[in-house]
């Protein structure tokens, strides 16, 4: 019989365990196949890397990210994430600038992107199915409608924050099961359908629900070909697959959003559980994505999907301004699958169920920002008032305002394409990748610069060839991030639209970093005048 290795007494906070499956659910929603995935896959119509191999290869590399974040959490649990890890290891200034840009400012840009996903997977298909064709097309194309959805997205997130995480955790679980049930039905339709029935269903539904002209299938193929659709489902050279990754990480770079930060007097188990929750989410989402698109290929035809994407986005991006897509809406694969039936009730219920992928996921977008704003206020880098909570509704009015107001301004710039903002989609991922790079560098140096902290952690024994696992994983993930940043910023093949050649992109990102730096230096100067040395906040007190 094995002997006891630990005796615990009754003391506050000593919890037993937590469920890996729960952690999996939240990580699974973070790399959200239906919202982030389908949205960004549809924009990759002109890339030569196969979608499925790109998902798989990037997923394998992103396991290194999972190791890095599970490791950081194991060494410094309950510390509050990137901001505190970076501030502690790399210094307060670096931590503040990277955290507020990556977890706060850039979320302004995500507001119109979230809204764009919401209108295309919720408003447009449901209104069309309900027989409100004009309203559906208004939501699909009118900038005012898109902006309205931006406002509604902010309202939804505000409600989530006011309800609190306890309620939202329940909502998320509900959405997980309902959303996946919807996806299962979509997959069953695709499994048992065939291309002939799809063509007939498309013709019947697209003309009736969204006013497409007869012959929509062939017209879509022709429009896509004219736009230059080439993206394959499978295959592509390794170089082409890597060049598709700066796009696909918009979808799968986020398994760490599901990480759990709790647990006391725990050890390697918590590291393994956190790793498992995130890694399973990454693996299963990748497998699910591959399965979905293999079924799409079988019944709808990959050719049709990629041509429909090309026809839609080349028109939206202004490359073919005189050629509206024959299928005059975003080619949402779940809706295309539901064209296999003409039963509107079935269509409505399944599309509504699929929208749970959005509602179970979107609520947390401003929560991370709220946490960073609060942490910065506690460090006196922002005024105390921004961390205040309205007592009646328990809503952090100020921090929400700091998200919603600039978020709506950026939304307006994006929606009406002012100052070239509509080209900035991938900047939303770039800025967070820079923040991740900061945390990854912190993880790489952690075993050497915070030796005591690392040695006293549950991951100290995990080594590869004598080198700490967190350092090895950190080097791999940092190399990946640097590759992504090179492709985004230098973009030698002119693929991503946010390189140094895009002045709007450079100015937008530059303004964000300068704003963050300005706030940090300004606060430091102001606090110094009031006798507070901001540098002392993260400085370690000597032990001896």
């Amino acid at each position: 019989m094995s002997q006891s290795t630990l005796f615990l007494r009754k003391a506050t906070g000593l919890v037993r365990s937590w469920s890996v499956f729960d952690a999996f659910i939240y990580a699974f929603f973070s790399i959200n196949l239906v919202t982030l995935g389908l949205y960004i896959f549809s924009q990759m119509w002109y890339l030569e890397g196969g979608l499925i191999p790109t998902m798989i290869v990037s997923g394998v590399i992103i396991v290194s990210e999972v190791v890095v974040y599970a490791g950081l959490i194991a060494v410094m649990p309950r510390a509050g994430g990137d901001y505190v890890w970076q501030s502690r290891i790399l210094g307060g200034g670096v931590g503040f600038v990277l955290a507020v840009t990556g977890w706060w400012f850039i979320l302004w840009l995500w507001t119109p992107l979230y809204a764009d996903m919401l209108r295309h997977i919720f408003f447009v298909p449901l209104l069309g199915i309900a027989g409100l064709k004009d309203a559906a097309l208004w939501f699909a194309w009118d900038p005012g409608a898109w902006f309205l959805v931006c406002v509604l997205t902010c309202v939804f997130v505000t409600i989530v924050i006011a309800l609190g995480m306890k309620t939202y955790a329940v909502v998320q679980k509900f959405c997980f099961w309902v959303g996946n049930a919807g996806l299962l039905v979509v997959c069953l339709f695709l499994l048992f359908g065939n291309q002939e029935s799809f063509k007939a269903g498309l013709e019947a539904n697209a003309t009736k629900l969204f006013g497409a002209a007869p012959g929509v299938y062939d017209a879509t193929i022709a429009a896509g070909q004219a736009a230059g659709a080439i993206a394959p489902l499978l295959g592509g050279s390794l170089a082409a697959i890597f060049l598709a990754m700066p796009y696909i990480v918009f979808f799968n770079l986020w398994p760490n959003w599901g990480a759990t930060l709790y647990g006391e007097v725990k050890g390697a188990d918590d590291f393994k559980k956190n790793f498992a929750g995130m890694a399973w989410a990454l693996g299963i989402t990748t497998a699910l994505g591959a399965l979905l698109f293999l079924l799409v290929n079988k019944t709808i035809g990959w050719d049709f999907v990629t041509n429909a994407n090309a026809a839609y986005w080349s028109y939206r991006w202004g490359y073919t301004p005189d050629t509206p897509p024959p299928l005059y809406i975003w080619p949402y694969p779940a809706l295309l699958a539901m064209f296999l039936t003409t039963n509107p009730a079935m269509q409505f219920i399944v599309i509504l169920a699929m929208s749970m992928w959005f509602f179970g996921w979107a609520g947390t977008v401003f929560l991370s920002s709220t946490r960073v704003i609060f942490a910065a206020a506690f460090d006196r880098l922002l005024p105390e008032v921004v961390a205040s909570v309205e007592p009646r509704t328990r809503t952090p009015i100020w921090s929400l305002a700091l998200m919603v107001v600039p978020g709506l301004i950026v939304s307006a710039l994006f929606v009406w394409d002012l100052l070239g903002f509509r080209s900035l989609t991938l900047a939303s991922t770039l800025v967070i990748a820079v923040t991740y790079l900061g945390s990854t560098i912190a993880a790489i140096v952690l075993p050497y610069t915070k030796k005591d902290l690392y040695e006293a952690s549950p991951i100290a024994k995990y080594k590869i060839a004598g080198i700490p696992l967190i350092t090895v994983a950190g080097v791999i993930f940092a190399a990946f991030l640097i590759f992504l940043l090179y492709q985004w910023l230098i973009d030698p093949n002119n693929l991503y639209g946010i390189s140094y050649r895009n002045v709007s992109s450079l100015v937008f990102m530059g303004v964000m970093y300068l704003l963050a730096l300005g706030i940090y230096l300004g606060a430091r100067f102001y606090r110094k005048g009031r006798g507070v040395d901001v540098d002392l906040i993260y400085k370690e007190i000597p032990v001896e």
Partner: protein
Amino acid sequence: MTRIFFATDIHGSDICWKKFLNAGKFYNADVLVLGGDMTGKALVPITQMPDGKYKATLLQQQFILNTEEEVRDMERRVGSRGYYPFRVTPEQLAEFEADPKKVDAFFHRQMLNVLEKWMALADEKLNGLEKQCLVCPGNDDALDMDDVIRRSKHVQLAEGKVVDVGDGFSMVSTGWTNITPWKTYRELPEPELAAKLEAMIPKSADMSRTVFNFHCPPYASQLDEAPAVDENLNVKDAGRSLIPVGSTAVRDVILKYQPLLSLHGHIHEAKGTARIGRTLSINAGSLYEQGVLQGVVVDLDPRKGIRSYSLTTG
């Protein structure tokens, strides 16, 4: 002006205690306040094997310790996380496993021993520094810990007292909390906690110069949000379901008396600040297992009240 450094919930961490004693110099603070829960939560046996070597398991990883130096290093690592290391033979370990009361008694002795060593270290380090050092045990600290603190020359036991902290400011302290799922040493139902708090607050005190040092944070203040647990103490929803677990009695007395400042701990994850009416309430939080001393530096100005404050991660 009086500068207070407040930290809390160091739970047996040697490193955090040493940092706390050095915080006066480091932050140039006049008054050091430890808000409770000084004692550790875990015992880690270092078992002697038949070949004379030792083995220990820390954070679910087993270590074979070949030399006395390695054993001492392991004891240091265990102690730095706030756990109590102890050397045993396999036979002694078997006796502990067979008799939970023996474990409890040993645990208790270890807590007292370590606290005695800490007080001795404090007397040595604070000697001649002219800094006030107040300690108020929390709900996880056994009641006889108070006697050990009382015997210290330079550490003042603050439990239940009104203490002058300089410049006309006074501090009222208690480590008692509302009922927790863990049934710890200093817990009371809310009505009894309210009566206890009322009894210790001087009715004639100038509340604009009074600090409440109450281990338990006020209810629904954001300083008391902890992950919800089920009846078996498993964390619900992988820690996402945060619920308020603070005390309504603490909240009520803060709202009723509106002291200048209230300092709290107890909920390690809920580091932050909040306004309860006019009162600035602060939970310094805790990262004791990592040897990180979270705290707050507050400057009290006789004319302006709170001149400034900063939450620190030292």
